[in-house]
């Protein structure tokens, strides 16, 4: 079964390896470039000594330089890779067997079809998870300098750091797998899986973005012009802690009332977004296994 799975998915595996190599080369170049821009401003020592309080200008100048066209491919990675990889790997797994009639060959050998599917799923999912983790690793490293000074609670970094990318790849895979079983057509299943992926994408983006599920509130003392000048996008944030995402600031005399998402909520938010993707993935894959199991009746 291991050989069979490898033989049937090796083209996809090599394609994923190719995608990873491209991402890795780009990530390496981007990461090195970011590090040189970071170091040329002496940001490392400044952050260490002052915790960011004294390096506002350097941070802003660094951020302006590195968050432009050079990071556009990152956005493409985070938007395009999960549904495309998922569709390319997921759609043919059942869709092509049904489309070409080879299911009659595959399922009349001595391995019952449910075991055939579960072993295949186990191996393919392991491969996809490894791919997701590898891309996440490269991207997280490349984006590292920006994470030191900025916010990784919003896209682009939020969607390719942590567990988000890996879970969304599995989600795209599960949806295309189920589409293949229902449509019995590889291309149709790829298209259906690609567009169905929009649903978990929108749900998870809403849950971890505009809805601000984990917002905290704090008060910060201020004096004079500092009170009126305080805004949501100052560097470092008015909370005084790099990485916090300030969502609103209101004046109350000599105090600021600040609503914000603490930087430490990165992981809880990652688990929410990953959980949403995984819930869709598990539902779709579970439905496919169940439908295949009872197709005999």
């Amino acid at each position, binding site marked *: 079964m291991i050989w069979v799975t490898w033989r049937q998915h090796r083209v996809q595996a090599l394609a994923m390896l190719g995608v990873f190599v491209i991402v890795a080369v780009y990530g390496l170049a981007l990461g090195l470039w970011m590090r040189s821009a970071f170091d040329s401003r002496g940001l490392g020592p400044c952050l260490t000594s002052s915790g960011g309080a004294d390096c506002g200008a350097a941070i802003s100048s660094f951020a302006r330089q590195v968050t432009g066209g050079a990071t556009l491919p990152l956005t493409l990675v985070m938007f395009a890779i999960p549904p495309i990889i998922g569709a390319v790997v997921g759609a043919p797994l059942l869709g092509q067997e049904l489309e070409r009639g080879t299911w009659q060959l595959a399922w009349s050998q001595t391995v*019952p079809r449910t075991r055939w599917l579960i072993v295949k799923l186990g191996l393919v999912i392991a491969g996809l998870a490894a791919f997701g983790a590898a891309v996440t690793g490269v991207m997280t490293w490349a984006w590292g300098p920006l994470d030191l000074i900025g916010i990784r609670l919003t896209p682009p970094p939020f969607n390719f750091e942590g567990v988000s990318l890996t879970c969304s790849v599995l989600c795209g895979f599960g949806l295309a797998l189920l589409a293949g079983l229902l449509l019995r057509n590889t291309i149709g299943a790829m298209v259906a899986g690609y567009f169905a992926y929009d649903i978990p994408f929108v749900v998870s983006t809403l849950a971890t973005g505009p809805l601000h599920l984990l917002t905290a509130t704090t008060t910060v003392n201020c004096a004079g012009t500092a009170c009126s000048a305080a805004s949501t996008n100052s560097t470092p944030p008015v909370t005084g802690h790099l990485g916090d995402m300030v969502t609103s600031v209101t004046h109350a005399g000599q105090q600021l009332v600040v609503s914000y998402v603490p930087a430490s909520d990165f992981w809880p938010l990652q688990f929410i977004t990953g959980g949403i993707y995984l819930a869709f993935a598990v539902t779709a894959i579970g439905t496919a296994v169940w439908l295949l199991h009872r197709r005999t009746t």
Partner: protein
Amino acid sequence: MTHDVGSVPALRADRLGKRYGHAWGLRDCTFEVPPGSIVGLVGPNGAGKTTLLALTVGLLAPTEGQVAVFGERSRAQDAATLARVSYLAQDHPLYRGFTVADMFRFGRSLNPSWDAGLAQARMAALGIPLKRKVKSLSGGQQAQVALTMALAKRAPMLLLDEPVASLDPLARLDFMRDVLAASAESGLTVLIASHVIAELERLCDWLLVLNGGRLQLAGAVDDLLAGHAVLTVPRDAANRSLPGRVIERADSDRHAAVLVAAAPGLVATAAARPGWAAGPAGFEQLVLAYLRRAPVAAVHPGPVGTSGTAMAS
């Protein structure tokens, strides 16, 4: 492979039925086939042939009744059922991007009893290189690769669904010759679903006729032929005056040719009447007669079975 011919049938269906939604694909199907038979399975499209094969190999689960291979009931999702039966589906599906060697490795990976020597020897004998991709092979060669996979599985029962429908006449002959040789060599029981009646006549010693999901005729070909006769009778002879059951009747100006299912003795007696004559029924004539009449609900286990209604046309 030896099986106790006396006691356990190679294939036995017992009131076997399969319903798809509201429609029955196969119903009330009861028959037995002895080991080592070459069984012809005939019927129009949608008659239930593929359903019967899929139930036997366990790709489908029956709605009612059961089918057993060498005494062991076929079950869906069951490795033991799959191991007893080799199934060559219609259009002999193969992975087009695989080489022949890949296909055999696929067979070896999924079948504990895989006979790699048999597979390689057959390819060598046929002159099909193992390195060739399946899609670069001719239709006849693809069918041979698929047959080889079915044989190398080393199951005692081989099911072939329209195995030669897409092949040219020469490839058909080669394919069927190989099926017969394999059956003779290893005592394989073979069930061939086919529309090509002439081919089945040449190959089969057992016959199953399905129509509208119902079994119309089942038995050893020799018994079936002996149990039917064509009577030429005066046109005014009523069906009830004829021996046995009337299967098909064709009236001309003065005479009627009637295919009857009747014991030879009864036929001989009838043929002795003045103006009456009897001749043997042909294989193709017999099959076509059973296919042409409206499907009969009850099963006729043999040529002169007493169950079921005589269909007078």
